[in-house]
């Protein structure tokens, strides 16, 4: 298993560079590497014990893959396969496929690492490859959006590096477990880096512009899996180190509420989906033990939603009310929206029930409010008009990608089929009903434009210093009590 793990990590990078050498085989090589990852993830689920590797020796790189990382790895594989299927006939150059598979490989490395420096390398490589994907159209706007993303992420990672060396100073090793013995400033610095990379709470306000202004398959990839690379170490640290757990849970609730608050007032389809990513990542953080399953369902549903949003006639909800979309697209949209709102029969329901069962008492109200807000904002998609011969342009690879993702949502029900009993079904259905009622009565008519001040570049960077102070205060409080 050790050799298989090492070759699984190295394969996407090797394939990525071979794509530059053999550009005519780009799509097939990329698909091969992504499918190999999927096979590896399925193998991991079947393993009884986690795979632990210590490469070289005591000071070397340590890798550990277990059930939790298996969910993230499977999400990575499925989202990458769907994006490659979507782009199959769309004339993307070999460069695009190479960058996609390099993002995939670096995310695999992020989900397998258990020490801060391997994680740093994986996060930075994924940032660089994502930058190249976002800037692919080479327009001024896309270059600015990509530059902003790379700048913010690199600055946050510089803080993260200072935190990592403080962990080393305290415990002579860079592994995650050393976070327990580290001083509060180390935890604060590392968390600033991870919160910005993962798009959590106000540090994640770079996310809406970046994810909405990229091309459709790139948005699907970014929202579906790239941000989870920042969330996975937070979940892992919460599980390994006792006193970090409440901090991660607090950020889970805060993020969930902030994201839905912006999303219910949003008038642009892709921006609303991006704010939803911010909010749903909060659900993963709110219950760290079961975050893996939620990450899987969210990755599948969010990439499906972004691919579908790319096929709609317009991005503005008002225009979508006037121009009906074609019925098959509407059916796919409704299925995806049902899954994220927590409707039974789709695995989003199982994920939400599982998360709600694992919440601490003080989190319950906030997370239920966030679920209600989710139902309200996705009512905007569900109640759109449609007709048989509607407008909307569909790429050739669209249906294969969307069917794969939504089919995955249906199949993933087997993971938590215990969710299907009367008590569990009643609450989500009630939440969805109240959400739809609130949408039809209140939110359909409200036109409130929330200020975008905090999304400006200077404010994003400045917010990092505020988050540092907030985090330092939180960790210091917990370590004193």
């Amino acid at each position, binding site marked *: 298993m050790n050799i298989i793990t090492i070759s699984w990590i190295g394969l996407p990078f090797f394939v990525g560079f071979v794509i530059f050498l053999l550009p005519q085989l780009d799509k097939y090589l990329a698909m091969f590497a992504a499918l190999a990852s999927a096979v590896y993830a399925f193998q991991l689920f079947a393993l009884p014990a986690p795979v632990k590797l210590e490469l070289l020796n005591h*000071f070397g790189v340590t890798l550990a893959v277990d059930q939790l990382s298996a969910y993230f790895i499977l999400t990575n594989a499925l989202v990458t396969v769907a994006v490659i299927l979507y782009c199959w006939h769309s004339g993307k150059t070999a460069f695009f496929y190479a960058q996609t598979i390099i993002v995939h490989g670096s995310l695999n490395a992020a989900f397998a690492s258990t020490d801060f*420096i391997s994680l*740093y*390398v994986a996060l*930075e*490589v994924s*940032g*660089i490859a994502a*930058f*190249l994907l976002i*800037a692919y159209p*080479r327009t*001024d*706007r896309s*270059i*600015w*959006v*990509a*530059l902003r993303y*790379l*700048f913010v992420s*690199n*600055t946050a990672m*510089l803080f993260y*590096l*200072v935190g990592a*060396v403080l962990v*080393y*100073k305290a415990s002579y090793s*860079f592994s995650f477990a050393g976070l327990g013995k580290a001083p509060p400033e180390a935890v604060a610095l590392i968390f600033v880096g991870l919160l910005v990379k993962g798009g959590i709470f106000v540090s994640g306000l770079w996310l809406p*512009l970046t994810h909405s*202004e990229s091309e459709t398959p790139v948005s699907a990839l970014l929202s579906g899996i790239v941000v989870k690379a920042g969330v996975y170490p937070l979940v892992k640290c919460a599980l390994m180190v006792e006193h970090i757990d409440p901090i991660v849970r607090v950020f889970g609730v805060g993020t969930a509420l902030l994201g839905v608050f912006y999303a219910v007032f949003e008038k642009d389809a892709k921006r609303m989906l991006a704010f939803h990513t911010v909010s749903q990542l909060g659900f993963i953080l709110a219950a760290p033990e079961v975050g893996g399953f939620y990450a899987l369902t969210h990755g599948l549903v969010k990439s499906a939603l972004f691919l579908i949003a790319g096929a709609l006639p317009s991005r503005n909800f008002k225009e979508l009310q006037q121009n009906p979309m074609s019925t098959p697209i509407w059916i796919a949209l409704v299925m995806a929206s049902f899954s994220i709102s927590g409707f039974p029969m789709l695995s989003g329901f199982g994920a939400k029930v599982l998360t709600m069962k694992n919440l601490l008492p003080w989190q319950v109200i906030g997370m239920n409010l966030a679920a209600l807000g989710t139902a309200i904002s996705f009512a905007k998609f569900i109640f759109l008009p449609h007709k048989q011969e509607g407008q909307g342009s569909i790429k050739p690879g669209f249906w294969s990608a969307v069917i794969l993702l939504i089919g995955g949502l249906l199949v993933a029900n087997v993971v938590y089929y215990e969710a299907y009993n009367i008590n569990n079904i009643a609450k989500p259905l009630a939440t969805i009903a109240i959400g739809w009622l609130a949408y039809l009565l209140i939110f359909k008519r409200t036109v409130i434009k929330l200020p*975008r001040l905090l999304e*400006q*570049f*200077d404010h994003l*960077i*400045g917010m990092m*210093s505020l988050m540092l102070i907030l985090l330092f205060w939180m960790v210091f409080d917990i370590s004193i009590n």
Partner: protein
Amino acid sequence: MLEEACVFATILCGFFGIILKKNLVMKIISMDVMSTGVIAYYVLIASRKGLFTPIVSDVNNGTYADPVPQAVILTGIVIGFSIQCLMLVGVMKLAQDNPTLESNEIENNNTP
């Protein structure tokens, strides 16, 4: 103590430069200053135990510096350098339409 203060002052200068400078190239240079500070901090931590290059040879010294942070930050230096190259290429392309490279102008033109 003094060295740590100087290193943190470098990091803070770089950080404030990113926020306060208006020109995009100056922002990138400030990020370079910040990353120089981080690299210097790693080398400082590596020199806690000793100052001799940790290469085993005939001369037996004993007070070797710690090689692990030095190795780690080599990766950091390379990554920081490649990110700067990519950002400067992006800035070159933006400079064709916005020659003054003021970040708020570029932001206003390119944010819907």
